[in-house]
């Protein structure tokens, strides 16, 4: 049991709030540096792709957004599971802190995918597996956000959203495989191929940088959103009053 006390201390709203205050600036700074390097190098200095020419540069926006859209949904589902099983306040707040961030990156992945698809496939949109499951993912995020806003009591809202998020997480792979039968136009994964990578180092470095930068940025945003959510839920408690008093000085 003793080994769990740090966890409980961390998960209590006031100490998490302070921890987030200390962590968030680092996340933000690192994210800004990595994204700035990744995008500038990717836009201007990385070599041209021999097949796709300059159009491939969209990868530096598209891949981080697509990766985040799935990772954040998984993160939201894990938070939902924790919120349902252990009724942890922090996890409840995390569900709604993650949802808008995830929705924004899903929308970005869709829009950049369309902008990439037009010059490469000749169409903004095709009904293939990845595009369709990404679109369903966006609707699932919207569902969670809509459900959240419909409730007045934040705890009931959190549990309802948690159930929806968990049912949704089962849905996404089913959608994906259901469309996989239709011939997929989408190219295979560029980075994660086993054996030799299909991308040269000069192209890969900015990609990794923007990928990690985007993850760190969403970490920063989620910490800030969690703080807001905690403030709202814990208003009237001693630690929030103390904080308000300090910020007024």
């Amino acid at each position, binding site marked *: 049991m003793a080994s769990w006390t740090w966890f409980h201390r961390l998960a209590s709203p006031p100490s998490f709030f302070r921890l987030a205050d200390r962590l968030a600036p680092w996340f933000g700074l690192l994210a800004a540096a990595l994204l700035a390097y990744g*995008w500038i190098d990717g836009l201007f200095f990385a070599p*041209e792709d021999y097949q796709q*020419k*300059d159009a491939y540069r*969209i990868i530096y926006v598209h891949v981080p*957004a697509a990766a985040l859209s799935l990772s954040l949904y998984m993160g939201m589902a894990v938070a939902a599971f924790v919120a349902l099983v252990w009724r942890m306040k922090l996890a409840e707040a995390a569900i709604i802190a993650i949802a808008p961030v995830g929705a*924004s990156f899903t929308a*970005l992945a869709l829009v950049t995918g369309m902008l990439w698809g037009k010059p490469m496939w000749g169409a903004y949109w095709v009904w293939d597996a990845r595009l369709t499951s990404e679109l369903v993912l966006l609707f699932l995020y919207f569902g969670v956000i809509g459900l959240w806003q419909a409730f007045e009591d934040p705890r009931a809202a959190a549990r309802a959203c948690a159930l929806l998020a968990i049912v949704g997480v089962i849905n996404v792979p089913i959608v994906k495989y259901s469309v996989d039968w239709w011939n997929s136009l989408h190219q295979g994964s560029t980075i994660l191929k086993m054996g030799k990578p299909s991308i040269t180092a000069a192209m890969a470095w900015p990609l990794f940088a923007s990928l990690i930068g985007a993850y760190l940025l969403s970490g920063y945003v989620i910490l*800030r959103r969690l703080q807001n959510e905690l403030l709202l839920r814990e208003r009237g408690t001693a630690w929030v009053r103390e904080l*308000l008093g300090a910020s007024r000085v």
Partner: protein
Amino acid sequence: MGGYGLYVWGSFGCGLAVLVWNVVAPKLARRELLRQMTETE
């Protein structure tokens, strides 16, 4: 950008817009929240 300028710049523009929204939205929400909470106290 070899004729692909519209698509590439469009993508990066959208990307930047999403990043900025993500950073700014919670900041504005925090300010609004703090204002409301100090007013009601």
